[in-house]
């Protein structure tokens, strides 16, 4: 019996992994042991079928069921050669050149198999944390230099320290002086999917990270605020939580200790703004996702007014390793004030799209060409947008910028959540500038005026510029408006929505003045 591996991640499913699995089972039946594992994160190869051979796993992809006859003819079950064969998967340069810390298990585990998680070193961070004092755990995280991976890049250890030091008031609804760990899983940025990968492909890692955060801060309840656009992740998380409860990782007396932690997934409902932490908390409280003014800090008065850690999925998923291998181990990756690794996500018009976890410091060019292999269309890359819909468009002139928080900021960009969306030379960046404001208008909570009215006005002014109407005055007005939104908005949505627009004005100014006739942002083959 030959063991085969095929991902059950939603990306693989979106391109036919289940159909392939059915065909394999139908045609090979007892001959094979088909394991549905996590993805390797090489999405251009999905569905990627791997075959266990004495030399290691040999990969084939992207496959469809129609490829099966020729594969079988090529001795698939013994790792035979075929045009779709990529050779030994582990040696694929895309993987071999990565430093996978947070995503070390990708491809090696079945997402909901607890034995697989343990076999990959899972729970050892928790085990260690159970023997440490809260302060020792917090110190370990501080030592690691981990900064929030959701975009704001705030040092995670400092946030935890604040919550650890906070005195929780009694809360009647919970009948205790409760603190919370809230996982921000509202991964709404276009071009990002690393949170989804953790949740779909290694959910126990997130659970372990949240448990460690709870031990560190004295929190007894946790919520994963998950975007409604991720139904697959929702199902996986629900099952994972049930399994973890059954095995004593969650609930009362964690692993027999006196610690307790109750964890729930709460589904969002289609509001990008709820990725902003205070709007997220409002939403978790059952309210409109309106941004709160800070102070008070959520760490002191967060969910239901209680001290609350709000961390992104990747931040929390980084914690088990930091605890098991020590903060110093993690810190030794990266450069400057950007420590550890960053899971970058290559997306859009890129030949080899997928997850690239590397230490901070790699240049954009290396990512785009060495990992990404250039554009999918084969045409020159004109721009990349980094860090989601509020991120700047970076022209090729800056492709040698190293990817760390500070260096990117210096060219007007931001790491954000690590999403990199690639545009080829056919993309209409004038249209993308308009879209940036359209998106801001669509997703504005409406609380503050610069964002509520400004985003609509910016669309109108952009439209006039693109129609060539008083272009100069309107461009000045646009610049003024962007400035107002940036400086005066209540939160980062209104405050950063001008970034893509300003970067396009700055680097691709001429594109603002031409309206393309076809709806296109590139990618035409």
């Amino acid at each position, binding site marked *: 019996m030959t063991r085969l591996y095929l991902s059950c991640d939603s990306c693989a499913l979106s391109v036919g992994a289940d159909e392939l699995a059915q065909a394999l089972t139908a045609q090979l039946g007892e001959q094979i042991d088909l394991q549905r594992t996590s993805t390797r994160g090489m999405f251009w190869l999905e569905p990627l079928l791997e075959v266990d051979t004495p030399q290691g796993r040999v990969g084939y992809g992207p496959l469809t069921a129609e490829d099966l006859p020729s594969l079988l003819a090529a001795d698939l079950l013994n790792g035979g050669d075929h045009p779709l064969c990529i050779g030994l998967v582990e040696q694929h340069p895309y993987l071999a050149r990565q430093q996978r810390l947070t995503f070390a298990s990708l491809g090696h585990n079945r997402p909901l198999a607890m034995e697989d998680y343990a076999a990959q070193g899972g729970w050892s961070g928790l085990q260690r944390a159970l023997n440490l004092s809260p302060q020792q755990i917090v110190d370990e995280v501080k030592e690691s230099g981990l900064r929030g991976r959701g975009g704001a890049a705030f040092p995670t250890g400092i946030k935890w320290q604040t919550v650890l030091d906070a005195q929780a008031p009694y809360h009647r609804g919970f009948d205790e002086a409760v603190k919370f760990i809230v996982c921000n899983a509202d991964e709404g940025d276009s071009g990002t999917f690393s949170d989804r990968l953790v949740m779909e492909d290694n959910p126990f890692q997130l659970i372990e990270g949240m448990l460690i955060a709870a031990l560190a801060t004295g929190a007894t309840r946790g919520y994963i605020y998950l975007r409604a656009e991720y139904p697959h992740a929702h199902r996986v998380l629900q099952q994972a939580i049930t399994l973890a409860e059954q095995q004593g990782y969650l609930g009362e007396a964690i692993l027999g200790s006196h610690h307790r932690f109750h964890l729930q997934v709460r589904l969002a409902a289609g509001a990008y703004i709820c990725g902003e932490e205070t709007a997220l908390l409002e939403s978790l409280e059952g309210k*409109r996702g309106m941004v709160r003014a800070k102070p008070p800090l959520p760490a002191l008065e967060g969910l239901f007014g209680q001290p609350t850690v709000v961390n992104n999925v990747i931040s929390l998923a980084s914690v088990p390793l930091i605890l098991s291998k020590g903060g110093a181990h993690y810190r030794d990756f990266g450069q400057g004030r950007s420590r550890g690794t960053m899971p970058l996500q290559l997306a859009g018009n890129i030949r080899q799209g997928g997850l690239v976890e590397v230490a901070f410091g790699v240049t954009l060019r290396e990512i785009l060409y060495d990992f990404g292999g250039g554009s999918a269309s084969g045409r020159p890359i004109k721009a990349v947008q980094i860090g989601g819909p509020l991120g700047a468009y970076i022209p090729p002139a800056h492709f040698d910028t190293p990817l760390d928080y500070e260096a990117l900021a210096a060219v007007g960009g931001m790491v954000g959540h690590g999403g990199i969306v690639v545009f080829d030379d056919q993309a209409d960046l004038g249209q993308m500038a308009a879209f940036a404001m359209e998106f801001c208008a669509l997703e504005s909570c*409406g*609380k*503050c005026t610069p964002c509520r009215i400004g985003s609509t*006005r910016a669309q109108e002014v952009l439209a006039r510029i693109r129609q060539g109407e008083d272009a100069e005055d309107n461009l000045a007005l646009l610049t003024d408006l962007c400035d107002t939104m940036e400086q005066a908005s209540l939160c980062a949505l209104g405050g950063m929505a001008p970034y893509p627009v300003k970067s396009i004005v700055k680097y691709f100014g001429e594109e603002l003045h031409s309206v393309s006739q076809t709806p296109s942002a590139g990618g035409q083959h």
Partner: protein
Amino acid sequence: MIGYFDPKTDRDLGTPASLSTSLITLEIDGEQVQVPEGTSVMRAAALAGINIPKLCATDSLKSFGSCRVCLVEIEGRRGYPASCTTPVSEGMVVRTESPRINKLRKNVMELYISDHPLDCLTCPSNGNCELQDMVGVVGLREVRYGLSVSNHLHLPKDTSNPYFTFDPSKCILCSRCVRACEETQGTFALTINSRGFDSKISAGANESFMDSECVSCGACVQACPTATLSENTVIEFGQAEHSVITTCAYCGVGCSFKAEMKGNQVVNMVPYKDGKANRGHACVKGRFAFGYATHQDRITQPMIRDRIDQPWRTVSWDEAFQFAASRIRQIQAQYGTNSVGAITSSRCTNEETYLVQKLVRAAFGNNNVDTCARVCHSPTGYGLKMTLGESAGTQDFDSVEHTDVVMVIGANPTDAHPVFGSRLKKRLRQGARLIVVDPRQIDLLKGPHYQADHHLQLRPGTNVAFINAMAHTIISEGLEHSDFIAQRCDQAAYQQWLSFISDSRHSPEATEAITGIPATELRAAARLYAQGGNSAIYYGLGVTEHSQGSTMVTGIANLAMLTGNFGRPGVGVNPLRGQNNVQGSCDMGSFPHELPGYRHVSDSSVRQLFEQAWQVSLADQPGLRIPNMFEAAIAGSFKALYCQGEDIAQSDPNTQHVEAALGSLECLIVQDIFLNETAKYAHVLLPGATFLEKNGTFTNAERRIARVRKAMPPLAGKEDWQVTQGLAAALGYTMTYQHPSEIMDEIARLTPSFQGVSYARLDELGSIQWPCNDEHPLGTPVMHEDSFTIGQGQFIPTEFVPTEERVNGRYPLLLTTGRILSQYNVGAQTRRTANVAWHAEDVLELHPHDAEERGINDGDWVGISSRAGQTVLRARVSSRMQPGVVYTTFHHPFSGANVITTDNSDWATNCPEYKVTAVQAEKVTEISKWQERFRHLDSYQRQLLSESQAEA
């Protein structure tokens, strides 16, 4: 003359005050400023005289941070923090103006104006618009976005509310209305529909204001910085040019208002921010229902007639006084000194009430003076005097902010005391626990973000059994506050009471069959009350208007003593007074057995004091109480009555009995603003003045004396105190007051608890809670702090004596009566305003089960009969009733609610038992006999009135 009062300039400091006591020093625009920790930068600047521009901030609401025009620069901080949401910190250096900041502000204002109609000149808020002000402040000179941009200028107005208009085209989405509805009023009737640019203020679930949960308190209108929410009177008349601070003449909360005036016309009523009873809030009555003051039905000339079937003759004041005085003297000559008397009103001022009792005692020469407090809170006076030594509530309204457990017994604060209701709900949302003791499901039971812990839905008439079971539980479970009892209470009385209450017949298990309250529920409530921290009892007429009203008040005081809940903020016994000046009318010696300050007429030293001051000798025996007056009238020994501002024919129980009594009088002098029901039996009609037309003081439920200031001249030329003075003069007893302040000076001279009160002092302090004397020069927010007025608190056993009013086969239902938010008492005022839009008629609420049994459907005519009479109302099948209990209000005279109620009354004070009447209800097709007679009499009397007015 009209006495203007200039209050402190009420600047809006932007954010609420911080209660912190530690001080922070910072620098704002180069000035050193010291403010309490937790103060916002905006407020700190305002306190230093620096006005940072703002739109969404107002000091009555928590900071919100949405408008972004209050941005400032703070050294060492990135960007431009909003000054409203940034708290001060030690050593902070703030800059509130710079070219950079002003540019940002100007750009933000430009965004606002790009979605705002440019009709300032014809806008109702012109001259009083914060948006307009801010445009001016930042110097916005052009809107570069042009006119053809997307906007909300086409949104239609909502004119469903009779008092205000919602014009969303002018809305700037500052959410002040939404927040006011939530934070101030506690109704949460407003929200924002959708989000982003599509955001729009929505009442309810996208409903019209009238169809939504809105209770028309007007907090949103007041909070609105633009013309989006505007009073219709402002839209019609324009902006006021001066204002007068005065006190509301509706319920016992005693809200302080700014009457916004244009000449003699009230444009609108704005609750006064510095008013300590209401803290800037109001209800639909106080804020909006002032139109009755200029209603065409107002009586504006004195009138007399010999017999009540004659037309009125319009006469001069003097002729009216002479006519009345000669009648009184004739009657006294024929039937004796004691054959005449007077009734004072809890709606009139302290000074007016004081004068009427003085007139009775000094000019009539007897003690036949009573007040309408007789029929509402006289048991409060009795019960609290006996146990604590003072006939008044023990706390101020602010006290509720320190309360952990609230027990509301027989009161409906969200309807009858709405502003206090809002303050109470705020505390409940903060986590205070709530026990409601009421036969009916009142609105307070459950509201946005809180829910009562216990609803003890007792049977009407079983209060005393309930309160005894509470005390029994506390004793039997050892939850009493022994130290407090030992230190503060009379031990002998306590021991006697203890042996009484310990009897197992008072256990919750034993009383369950009487009250209908499950014993386990009652025990849980008793534990909560005894152990929940600061526990406060608030009660209303559901406690007093019973044949055991005085016993129940005593039981309440016992319970609070038992648990040590006296003498500090957050606790106490708090009677919610029905009318604006119930407390004051009692204080002023309106009771037939007491001189001002609750001193018995038999006390010769007190009598001497007054005899000297008034230069007469005073009777030393109690006079007649209101029900006794009716009995005596029917018996033929009581022949003349001077009734000021009180409509006994509608408000007192057993209407037919009252009508018989009034019909027996040879002289009835009615002083009122309208031809009320009582006036239809009158021989002399003296026009009264509304609270807007006179000077004086009211004393609210928290003993707070507050000024009533004349905002317009009296329609009939005289303030009510002048009328009483005129009548006294005609009787040969001269009073020479030039101004009500002189009356107050006399009261202060003669009444120890008012010793420190004067108009000058009231102007200085805003209001004063008595006692105010050398010991308490600033007044007394919380009474009985170190010891009770009586000395040692007196526990008094409270035997439960069931009312004689029992259900039987013929009268199987219990009727209980109450009030509704939009109407006030007999409705004489509110029925003459647009408040009828909410409550155009009284209805009979009955449980679906009782309705079903009788084949009654919602809206059917239902005949209600009791041992006293019959009337007909429309049915409202309602799940808030318990089976076997029906409910109605008494706001409309034709409803005849009091035709049904009986002569039963409180054993100690004769307070009528309005709350328990055995009745039968059945479907009918025509109005009752009484109603037919009423209609006839009503139209006949109206005709007599219009004849006289035509003649005049």
